[in-house]
């Protein structure tokens, strides 16, 4: 199910795509692929990502 899930930017009515996105945390910046609207740039972070991999990276950065 999850893999077939499609997300559509509600402003531009186009499908979200995995694209480079920049994140900042605790004075560090890095790029990672995330779902974005190819037209307006709006980002979408699914819950699984926020609770999973993102949480792990946050933890690592908090310890650094």
């Amino acid at each position: 199910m999850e893999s077939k899930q499609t997300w559509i930017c509600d402003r531009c009515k186009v499908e979200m795509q995995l694209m480079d996105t920049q994140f900042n945390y605790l004075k560090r910046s890095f790029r990672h692929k995330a779902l974005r609207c190819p037209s307006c740039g709006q980002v979408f972070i699914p819950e699984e990502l926020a609770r999973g991999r993102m949480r792990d990276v946050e933890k690592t950065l908090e310890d650094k």
Partner: protein
Amino acid sequence: MDAYLKNFGECLQKEPPFCGAECPFHMDMHGFIEKIRKGMWSAAFKTYRNAVGFPRVAAALCHAPCKSVCPLSERGGAVEMALLERACLSFAKDLGATSYNVPAKRGRIAVVGAGAGGLACALRLSAKKYNVEIFEKEDHVGGGLCEILPPDLLAREIEEQFKHEEYELRLSCEIENRSFLNERGFDAVCVATGEGGYDFGLLRAEGDKGDRYCLRDGNTAWFACGALIGDDGIYALSGGLYMGIVIDNFLKTGNLFYPPNAAATRMVLDAARLTDAPAVFPQNGEGYTEDEARGEAFRCLKCQCDACKLYSDLCDFTGKWPLRIRDEIAATTLPGVSEIKATPAKRLLSASNTANICREICPAEIDLEGLILEGRRSMHKQDKAPWAFHDFWLRDMDFADGPEAALCMAPAAAGTCAYAFFPGCQLGAGDPRLVEAAYDALLEKHPDTALLLRCCGAPAEWAGNEDKNAEAVAEIRDAWRGLGEPVMLFACPSCMEILGRRIPEMPLRSLYETLADRGANVPDAGVSAAAPCAPCGEWAIFDPCAARRNAHIKSAVRKLASEAGCKLTPLPVQERVTRCCGYGGQPSAASPEYAAFVAEKRASESALPYIVYCANCKDIFIKAGKECKHILEILFDPPGAVLADKNASLNSPGVPFRLATVTERRHNRAELKRSLLEKYWNGSSADQADRADQDESAARPRLKIGEALLVQMDEDRILEEDVREVVDFCERTGRKVYSEISASYSGYRKIGHMSYWVEYRPTDSEDEIELLRAYTHRMEIALEAVWNGVKTNVDM
């Protein structure tokens, strides 16, 4: 920071055990015992041999002075160290001397006398690969030892221990004066001519620093040791080994340094460590079997100062000693960028309690928690503390101190007030009825009692944010002055402890002492048997860490509880060592595991339900599944709902108590303010303003949130207000993504530091939206407004 680091210099962790200090050789007792426990006989033997030089000689000579200081001597008998040593000699497979592969050193040493002292000194120095020459006036070695030990044992032992070493032995060669050796270019001379032997002037000599038994003569340093200076028996042997160290030090540094070879210990053993097992005696009357020896080794307490390990939850949880934690904190708080230096304690600093238990139980008063708070301040100042560790509570504090919840009112009737009630922000958040009931009782007793609803500033103190803390304290001081400097009555021991420290001129008292005073108006109905969970039966009072040193509060609460009909049984440890429930210092964001570990430890100290008098203790215990009541619940058993709002029915009589969610805690505070204003001050302008606020929010569609999601949000500390704000934002700006599968919208907004995400969908009803998900992340999504060089001008 320096003062704290200096304080740690006093730590006794590395002090030797009693037996080790008393042992003539200062053997590494813990290592020795541990090896025997494991049955590592050869390794244990090696420890012994390294300490005593000539193990067979030492075993025959030693009268085990260590036994006289062993704390077990009156509890089943001192550990039989001598028998253990002999067991090593019996069971070690490898009794050979160790060969040390070290390069030859410059330095020529003459040893005068080949008795116990001289041989021992020669052994140490030749093993360090100095050039050693022994002069003995007799035609054989051994001196006084020959009278005590069988000649063949002595000869074998000397041969064995010197097996890998080179040295010159000059028998029948009596030295008559210092110049003989001086002229031969010796750098140092060890004189060990035995009891009554020739002393070369050393018995009355003093070294450069006033040390006895040493002198400088030209380029040669002279030292005396052994029976010549009164060290007989086993002490001649240990003195000779020690001489080896003294001379080695002289050759390295040129200092004539010869302090006495006594090692005192400052070690303090916690009485809880004492046991009563009887000493193991060898069945055959002579020596231990392997099992007997190991049994005896297990009886040893391995004495060490470890009060911190026994009582500090942080040491227990991390398995680290305070000295190690100090090192980690010192490294972490060192100014500099973290890319190039280690920051091992970054999380630990916030993942710990701050309730000063270490200083309390530590015989050296090592202030581990003080260091931790200082570390938090340092990290905050350097802007290096991860905000997420304390952010939630700082925002919570802002709310408690903000217009919706804070209140400072003198009673309408009274001109000046003699008292002011400071319930603290958490009591009303969890259960506003308790604040109201307590205030009622206070007014009945002292009608001139003002009310001050707000936070004491603890979250800022715990976050290391001194400015914010000072601001809160200044506001409280002003409010207190504005009320005419009344006596402050505290419901929360933490508020009381913190503000007592911060505003020393403010007179303070606990609510419980005031209630316990005769004449206090505590309603009898509160103890009626008809009430659900009536306080009959047995309870244990759990004292909060902040009340540790306050005997008055402790006894007042006990008095109140027993008068209410509770049968009290003391907690075995908590009464003696009053530790934190896990809330103090707010470690749960940085380490929920640590907070849960502490809560579980405290909760499991007794199977009895607890009576607490700190709102935070109550929340912690309820969350840990422990039956627990606030003393005010027992006293007042207030009617009505715990929750001010819509979920009221959840806490009606007969329904098991449920903790308020983070959202409800805010509503409760606002509602408390509103209802108190209404009750005692006939409403007010502030009240009106709040109502206007409410009307506005009532105009928006309602959020429908399922029970599971509510629980999850509470766990994640997501407020319904936060969710509301994000939904409104998404709807207003159209910044949301659509999922066809679930026909739902998702979007986020950064509130404060945190990014909040929601997934929601419209319902059949116009004025209701269903919330499907709520979650957060701490990372910030950057540069979203600037995409492909196109600046979108959305409302971010």
